[in-house]
């Protein structure tokens, strides 16, 4: 019988093959070859694309280069969403590798945050973890950690060190057994069809009557449109890490096992493929 620990590994070591091509709008000295890379689903675009940048800079003049950003079929890709979320949201059910355009000019100020260095990503990542722990444990666990422990979480993500990361992160996933789960589940629901960036509300893993609440309960309450009645055809896919968990999966289990390293459960609701 497979073990829950294996889920954590699968989640961590999830990779998306990507093909980076330089946008035709960019001016180059010579033809730019596409660049192929396996992107970790749980990491951030700007954190793992140093090689991409280096590759394309070789064919560009320094004066043409501003801040690098990415776009997929016209949609600028928000670097502060985990890569897996971006893929699930915009490109699931498409052919692999994922074709991403690279831009060095005309930064879409309205759509994207600037990311001038890795410390910006680190700050974003750590603030997410802190926010998640505020929901889960009233920040008690994260505040009990030392500076070096925080660093260990970040370094674990940055260097793709599963053991290093989880040696610390498991403390964030603990909860008192008598309570049956976290105080609130840190989650975000993303929809392509909505103007809102995402849905995030307070949601407890256990009902007042003591039942474990499920993914279905969560969606019913916060995103009823994503669930369809049994008789009608499926209109939406509910994706987490590229898979569609059954609606009866307890959210507490999902939060413990399918959260991203930022400790949030990122759920993508996307239109079901028509065929």
């Amino acid at each position: 019988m497979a073990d829950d620990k294996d889920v954590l590994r699968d989640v961590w070591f999830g990779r998306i093959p990507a093909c980076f091509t330089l946008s035709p709008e960019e001016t180059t000295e010579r033809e730019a070859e596409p660049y192929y890379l396996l992107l970790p689903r749980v990491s951030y675009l700007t954190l793992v694309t140093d090689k991409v940048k280096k590759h394309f800079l070789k064919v560009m003049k320094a004066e043409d280069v501003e801040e690098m950003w990415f776009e997929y079929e016209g949609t600028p890709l928000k670097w502060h969403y985990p890569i897996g979320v971006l893929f699930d949201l915009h490109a699931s059910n498409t052919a692999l590798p994922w074709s991403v355009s690279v831009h060095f000019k005309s930064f879409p100020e309205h759509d994207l945050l600037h990311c001038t260095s890795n410390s910006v990503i680190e700050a974003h990542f750590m603030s997410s973890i802190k926010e998640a722990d505020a929901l889960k444990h009233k920040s008690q666990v994260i505040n009990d950690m030392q500076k070096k422990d925080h660093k260990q979480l970040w370094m674990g993500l940055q260097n793709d060190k599963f053991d290093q990361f989880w040696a610390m992160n498991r403390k964030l996933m603990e909860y008192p057994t008598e309570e049956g789960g976290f105080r609130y589940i840190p989650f975000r629901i993303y929809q392509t069809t909505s103007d809102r960036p995402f849905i995030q509300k307070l949601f407890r893993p256990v009902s007042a009557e003591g039942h474990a609440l499920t993914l279905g309960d969560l969606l019913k309450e916060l995103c009823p449109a994503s669930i369809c009645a049994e008789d009608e055809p499926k209109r939406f896919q509910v994706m987490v890490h590229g898979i569609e968990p059954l609606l009866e999966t307890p959210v507490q289990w999902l939060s413990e096992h399918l959260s991203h390293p930022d400790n949030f459960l990122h759920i993508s609701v996307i239109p079901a493929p028509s065929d």
Partner: protein
Amino acid sequence: MPSSLLWAVDVYGRVYSLSTAGQQWEYCRDAHLEFKRITAVQQCCWSIACDHNIYLNVHASDVPIRYQEETYENQRWNPVDGFSDRLLPSDRWQWSDVSGLKHQPLGDFQLPSDNWEWEADWYVDENFGGENTEKAGWTYAIDFPATYTKDKKWNSCVRRRRWLRYRRYKAQETWVKIPSEQTESLPDPFNDITCGGWEITEEPRGCLALWAVSLQGKVWFRCDINHHNPEGSFWEEVPVPGEVVQISCGPGDLVWAVLWEGNLMVREGIGRDCLNGSSWVTVESPSPEAGAVHVAVGVNVVWAVTKDHKVWFRRGVNSHNPCGSGWIGMVGEMVMINVGLNDQVWGIGFEDRAVYFRQGVTASELSGKAWKVVSVPRDSDRSHSSASASSLQSAGCFFGGEVRLESQASVLSDADPETEKAVGGVVPTPEMGDSPKPRIPKVTSDSFISELVSDREGQISRRDVPPAGPSIPEEDHPEKEVEDRASPAQVLSPSQSGGLNPQWSNVDLEEAQTHLSPGPGVDAAETCSLSSVATYNLALEEPYGPDEHPKWAWVSGGGCLVDCHLQLNWFHSSTSTALNSSMQAMSLSITPAQTAAWRKQIFEQLSERSKREMENFMHYEQAIEQSVWVKKGTMQWWRDWKPHKWVDVQFALEQFSGAEGNKDGILFIYYTFNDEKKYLHVFINEVTILVPVLNDSKHTFAIYTAERTKQRWPIRLAAATELEMYDWLALLSVSCCDSRGVQGPPSKQAIWSVTCKGDIFVSEPTKELEASPYPTPCDQMFWRQVGGHLRVIESNSLGVVWGIGYDHTAWVHTGGYGGGFFQGMTGSTDNIYTQTDLKSVYIYENQRWNPVSGYTNRGLPTDRYMWSDASGLKECTKNNTKPPSPHWTWVSDWTVDYAVAGGTDREGWQYAADFPASYHGYKTLKDFVRRRRWARKCKLTTTGPWQEVPPIALSDITILPCGPKSTVEQVPLWAISNKGDVLCRLGVTSLTPGGSSWLHVGTDQPFKSISIGGVHQVWAIAKDGSAFYRGSVSAQNLAGDCWYHIPSPTGQKLKQVSVGRTSVYTVDENGNLWYRHGVTPSYPQGSSWEHISNNVRKVSVGPLDQVWIIADKVQGSHSLSCGTVCRRLGVLPMEPEGHSWDYGIGGGWDHITVRGNATEAPRILMPSLTDNGSNRTATRSPLQTSDRPEMNGNPVGC
């Protein structure tokens, strides 16, 4: 932890049991009688039934209770007849006991009671001191009494032989009446009973103390109850200064009794020589106003109930001060209290007659925290087909008897209401009948009597209500109804005391009336049938109606083991709080998560996703380059050069990605030498094992590589705290496993070993491990630790793995990995359970004789410490001796240990001429010193992938190495119980490795080692050191048919055996390893023993006939190690004895099993190279036989 049972009697006299693992009361279907008292211990229940007889229910066990009867046939030689039974007039009897003093022909042996049966007829014992006499069992001597020999000599004038016959106790799982031996004219039936005392002595085995109180207030003690005599022999009256109403006996030497007038008495002088004590000491009742009516004692606790139902706890009670120091009033109103194992407490509430459990009772807080009601339903389908006739009769006896006796009692007492009240253990207040609260029928206990009394005053006439049988609401069988209800009428009608109807209605349930539509007011006999029909219908409508408020009369937890690790499911019910129910809901939804569809779905989808998104793109570059990760710390290091000492070092682990994506690392130890900074490094992929070495002073662990194993000199490191040590160990373990690509549970082929600290290690064999002629040297094997604590471990190639703890508990591997310190990310949580182990720590009290004061603790200046370890070199006092490591905690006090080799006197002393010398158990004139051993038990609690296999304690175990390939076919598994019984486990398959039950295989003497090899060859070693072969064992006949005696090698007592595919190896008590020659399919017993090696502690022969041993001493280049894993080299089909040894991990190893490893390496035949192979190993140091001073080779310590 295995489940155990709590026993209780309800107010109708029915006996129920509740399992610690269960959630409902199970009706004891065998109880044809109604009972009023029950007292349970782990192996049996004693009870008093309504007929005032005492009954015993011995719980069934896979090992039968059998007793060996023996007698000797004696003969003398004369020139005419040769040897004949014509003896000299001065000689002993022709048939006698071993001493010759008692005449006992075969025909004189009778079964002690109807509950015994003979196993077979008499037969001659051919075995003489481990050898076969081969002369029909005759042994010869010059004359009686003399030394007998196996061989007949010229001067052998007499001979004798031993006849044996076994009898077996057959009355198990049934209530057996213990015949009463009333000799006096007045009947004085028993009124209370209590069983305990099993901790007082271990000799004889299963010794129990049973105390009973008669209605006249006399106290009786049942003598000679032990394993071989479960019923005991006779009652002995224990004089008491007053009239006793109730008595309680704890597991140890604590016995308290309640006197008629409300004071208590404590028995003193109880010990192993005097189980029933010598004198009584009086203790005042807890409350001056209300006398005590009930007392319950455990090991170190006394609880009492006074007449006003108040509960009291006695402070300061222990073995040295059985009277304690003072009473503390507790919350709650109880009618009775019972103390079970671990001093856990149960009570029956006064208001609701529910069973209560005292929560939070621990060794440090014996009084517990709160009463918690045990609210579980009773099993509702009660078929009464078996309970018909006798229940009619006994129910009659019951009601009739009680009533008659009451009239007696009230005549004896002087009708004073106060005295009347004191009649019962529990006395209802006179107003109770008028109070609005629901009346509770008290039928079973004495309270019934007092209620009759109180009722008779004013109630009876009023309560002339339509009758209903006591058990109506729960009955679903109309015929039984009639019987039940008819019976009281039948018996009561002749009884003249009190009149028919009043008593009838007294037995009545007001409670029941609410369920019943009142029947027409006709006379009893008719009503019965009518209302029973009505009840029948009602029962259909409300099948669980009566279970909501079961009323209990008596509870006994003497066989019920509850401790802080046990999750009891007794407290969930409709009445529990919202919080409780929510917890229940959570636990219900989380536990099945392991098998839930959503979980499976996630697993499947994740692996699909990985395939979809990654499979075709693995040639893509990884976005994140693997970089080095460093963890640093400070530690102490046992430095390599002399003088050896702990030095402070910096410790760092650098991890990086190795070639094929797997991780690797280097360990650095930075130290200063002559003010110069230096370092030592170890490649993680070269580490072969990490061994935690816990002792009471330092938290250390040892790191071995193949090179360090050769040197017998590991890197020893000490962390500042235990936590830090385990952090490092966990991290290093993960790193080592990662670098070698070892993950998940051990494979079926795994080689398991155990250190002398009980730590468990497992190694994955490679194909090359048993390759010939170039096997992988076994010092290169990589071992990883598995959680748990064991003394013995055995496996087979189907992945069935069993272990035995230090306390002889049997454990089966759950297939999981992790536990122990491998928590969190380094192990799995699946199939990991709590595991406990128990062992004794021994210290010695030494004394020297002087002419003035005799033996005193004043020794000579040159003497050993007056309190020391076994060697006398280390001072070990009661106070300064700590448990072996922080994982162990004391669970008992120091007690004198009488079970010491050589025997002891009554106070446990062993005498000798001087220290150190050989000790004997009696004093002679030449003995100037004496010593005695003190033992203290300690307990370890850990976690690991092990589940207990109750209830039989084992000392050895073996599993057929290469079993059937299918997962449903039975895997033969044999074991030896810690009492020496041979057992065969039924129902073991690779899917159900725990099996189902034990089959007992009879032997003429206790056994100590067993092994099953290819084609079901079973070999065993008896306690006398001889070997036995079991004939006709096959897949169809798992237990075989008879034992063939195999003489041991001359002058040697064998102690262990291991059988591989065809090879049979044994180890004797002097450390010699023997190979059995001439074992062939047609003659599986073989012909002779060949000496292979000395210095061997244990042997394990695998399914490839590979031979592995634990060697006593192995010399390395730096040090010597004791307890080392070694493998026999050069073992070939035609040369199964091999030629030399290859040395692996050690020292400190205690046990190894290679019986799972059936991975055969492809054989390469290179005859010219075999010589080289042996040369290479020959250059290694051979097994050392000389005692060289041992330096540091045993980090684990032996």
